[in-house]
């Protein structure tokens, strides 16, 4: 696997085909758990782990699975991996497991996982498949983290609260009170805050993409002129 290939896959997952703001797949957890940074990042990382593992697990068997039953087999493997992750979280990060609760099993039904398997892992060798799962997962995690941060600041006036749930007592001092004596803004904490926050993120991503395109055109145009001249 060449370096350029890795770069392309990463660029695709993190920016160009970002699941959160471009493909708009996997919105269920995006909206539900993104009310604080710690919830958002934890579920994002759990999803990334499942996507990396499922990419790596399904790619080597892609030639042995009959085409007609590939979806049941893929789902079976994804469900198995999610359950394994759930057991491990429950055993080693109990308080985080309590926080994420129902959303861990829901990773099975997150369409982004199956979508990447169908679109990528089912057609590519192991290493690129794993990297693709990782990149797509990280792209989702990044969007979740930004959305979680926005909603936490507007909703509670804090940032990074509750990290001790995930990392133990050492993270207790991580909380940043952005707005002191804040009374909370319920709207940001409830689902509408997630929808509007995501809308703003998509708009921001589109703006940046358009600007980059314009710049690229502006660079090309003079170059073309010199050729014709």
């Amino acid at each position, binding site marked *: 696997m060449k370096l350029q290939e890795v770069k392309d896959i990463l660029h695709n997952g993190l920016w160009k085909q970002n699941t959160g703001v471009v493909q708009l797949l996997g919105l269920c957890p995006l909206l539900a758990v993104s009310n604080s940074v710690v919830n958002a990042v934890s579920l994002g990382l759990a999803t990334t782990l499942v996507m990396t593992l499922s990419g790596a697990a399904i790619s080597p068997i892609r030639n042995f699975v009959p085409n007609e039953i590939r979806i049941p087999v893929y789902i079976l*493997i994804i469900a198995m991996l999610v*359950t394994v992750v759930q*057991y*491990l979280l429950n*055993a080693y990060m109990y308080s985080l497991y309590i926080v994420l609760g129902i959303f861990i099993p829901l990773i099975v039904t997150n369409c982004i996982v199956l979508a990447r398997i169908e679109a990528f892992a089912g057609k590519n060798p192991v290493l690129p498949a794993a990297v693709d799962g990782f990149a797509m997962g990280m792209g989702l995690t990044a969007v979740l983290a930004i959305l979680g941060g926005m909603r936490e600041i507007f909703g509670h006036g804090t940032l990074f609260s509750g990290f001790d749930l995930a990392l133990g007592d050492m993270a207790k001092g991580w909380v940043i009170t952005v707005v002191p004596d804040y009374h909370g803004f319920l709207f940001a904490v409830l689902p509408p805050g997630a929808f509007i926050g995501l809308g703003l993120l998509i708009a921001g991503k589109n703006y940046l993409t358009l600007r980059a395109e314009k710049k690229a055109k502006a660079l090309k145009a003079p170059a073309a002129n010199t050729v014709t001249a």
Partner: protein
Amino acid sequence: MKRLTKATLRTALNLLFFSVIGTAILAFTFNLTYELIAQSEEKAKLQLINQVAPQSLYDNELIKDSITVPASAQLGTEQDTVAYRGRLKGQPSLIVLEAIAPDGYSGKIAMIVAISYAGNITGVRVVTHKETPGLGDYIDIARNQWINLFAGTSHQRYGEDEWKVKKDGGQIDYMAGATITPRAVAKAVHNALHYAEENRASLFAENEIDTKGASKQEAGTK
């Protein structure tokens, strides 16, 4: 026809093969983790119980000394629940009950209530609830200290009619913005206290064997 059967069988076997592998991996992980999971669940439970039951009030292994409390309208429970019994030098001293307030603003509010042998509530904690974030969720200790006002309450302190929020003419403080939630909690805590008083004999029994005495007694009083 024969070809179809063969193809079906081959596909089924293929699927079976993956199921077996998946199940094996799951079984392995389960085996690896279930002890740890049980341990952390017990630890979490004990941590919660310790918030309501002062450790000076019991010296036994409370989590292992439990009785089954049958479903009761007074406790708001629809299934058998587990109550933990604290003992001090072998004498019954404390009971930790599960209670459910059925009439929260959005659904049930599950809590645990610890009541001492003398009939004092030593503490209450909300375990699960779906109250509105920012409004009714101050019953949760993670949000507010409000729930601690029940610690030390008893029928000696508040008369029969005083277990209501102040708005309804009772003694229980509440916060502006949400009255339905604290009203439901206060009512459920009061009912749990009644339950403990009426079932004293079985809840504070001397023996350490799991008895279903509470159910008999309740059936008897009806």
